[in-house]
């Protein structure tokens, strides 16, 4: 995975980076939302949660195709792992049924664990890859698992830059 260059001069060398956003904080303060792109669900394998890997034309000039496809494929793999029907899900189901589903008050379901992994992954992708390119991915969970929403930002023109190696804002959980 290509990680974001650290200094502003390095960033201007990026082929797809017209604006030099340093991190999520700067993105928020110095950019304005231009557009939103929605990646739809792919239903060819049934009702499992899977998103289309087709590269949207609006992102053509913003990010490399392979990076985007990697992100979506990894997300699809995570969801497939969460929804996998196998030994572990049977065990979880039977155990839960025997305890009249009270066990879910104490432990997390496998799906919830994977969702947390996904949200960490999306956060990491945003920090490393998407924010430097002026993009932001929204967790599909917040959109009813229907779409991956990618917000496209444009520089307002006032990117006052301290060399932005500071860590991104905390995810206040």
């Amino acid at each position, binding site marked *: 995975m290509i990680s974001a260059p650290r200094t502003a001069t390095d960033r201007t060398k990026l082929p797809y980076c017209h604006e030099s956003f340093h991190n999520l904080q700067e*993105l928020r303060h110095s950019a304005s939302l231009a557009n939103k792109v929605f990646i739809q669900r792919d*239903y060819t394998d049934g009702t499992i949660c899977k998103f289309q890997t087709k590269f949207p034309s609006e992102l053509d000039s913003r990010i490399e195709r392979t990076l985007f496809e990697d992100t979506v494929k990894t997300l699809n793999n995570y969801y497939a792992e969460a929804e996998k029907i196998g030994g572990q899900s*049977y065990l979880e189901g039977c155990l839960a049924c025997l305890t009249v589903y009270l066990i879910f008050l104490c432990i997390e*379901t496998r799906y919830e664990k994977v969702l947390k992994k996904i949200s960490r992954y999306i956060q990491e992708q945003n920090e490393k890859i998407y924010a430097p390119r002026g993009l932001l991915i929204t967790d599909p*969970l917040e959109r009813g698992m229907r779409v991956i929403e990618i917000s496209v930002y444009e520089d307002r023109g006032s990117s006052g830059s301290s060399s932005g190696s500071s860590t991104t804002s905390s995810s206040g959980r």
Partner: protein
Amino acid sequence: MSAVMISRKVTRKWEKLPGKNTFCCDGRVMMARQKGVFYLTLFLIIGTCSLFFAFECPYLAVHLSPAIPVFAVLLFVFVMAMLLRTSFSDPGVLPRALPEEANFIEMEIEAANGNVLAGQRPPPRIKNVQINNQIVKLKYCYTCKIFRPPRASHCSICDNCVDRFDHHCPWVGNCVGKRNYRYFYLFTLSLSLLTIYIFAFDIVHVVLRSVDSGFVNTIKETPGTVLEVLVCFFTLWSVVGLTGFHTYLISLNQTTNEDIKGSWSGKNRVQNPYSHKNIFKNCCEVLCGPAYPSVLDRRGVMLEDLSSPAPSDASSTNKSSNPVSQTTKSSAPLIPNEHTPDEAKPGIGAGTQKSASSPKDEKPPSPTSPNAVTPGVIKESAH
């Protein structure tokens, strides 16, 4: 720094959710609006079981075995737990599309339809997808402004699109969908067992007692038995039948909705693309599949309109903030036509304003700075 403290009650997202659900316990419980029949169900189950514990159990525990009431208690607890779980949980409601998503979909539809001459009927909003070599039509929901995923359907009673919609059950006071179908099935199954159990032991009790003291005296001593037998008799036919019907549906991996509509009835060589063609696999998928999470964030805190300077730590205490910017690049205006349902018309063209479905936050749109992104808008925390 002057931080104006606003003492306000925290607003949670469930208070602003569209649809006709009622919520209790600060968003933890979610039910349909009409709950009368649900209370009847509760009354019948608790009433009949109380009569059983009061009249039959003392006698049977002594004369037959103490295991009988113990097992009855376990069954009763299981039935109640499954009933409450079915009634109180989110059946798999799909949240409505936020304005940007709705606009995006409208633009896609218009692009797909091409130029429709004025006065001509536009084609119906349907998307075709291929699932396991079967063409499945996805319909557009005018209320929720989304293309419904396969197997989802809009419940008119609750006014929500529900994923893997089975049916709306008034006895349970909720829709039955992807998330609570297995609890519903276990409820009907365990209720059948409980009904058969109580019925059987009522008969046993009456017989045993009649041998000792005669039939008429028995009825006089335990009048509750008559009531129980009546209730169980009528319940048996309906609940056992229902359990059998749902067992059949599960083995074919079908929903009640699909069965009623005849979606996979085999006409025109239409097959159920979701079935694994193996009864065991179908049952396992429905009953032992993963526990799907709710995508309705009911208990998330909504950010109020901020009238004080908003430091970023003010929003960090919230579970999630919403990146809805009030303005986006202008998109194609939604053109209502004679086929747009009346309730959708006011929403069209007002895509960037607050709709009932979008969690409201931050400042209202200001015409002078159309592209402003207010601080703290970007999502800071995940669900």
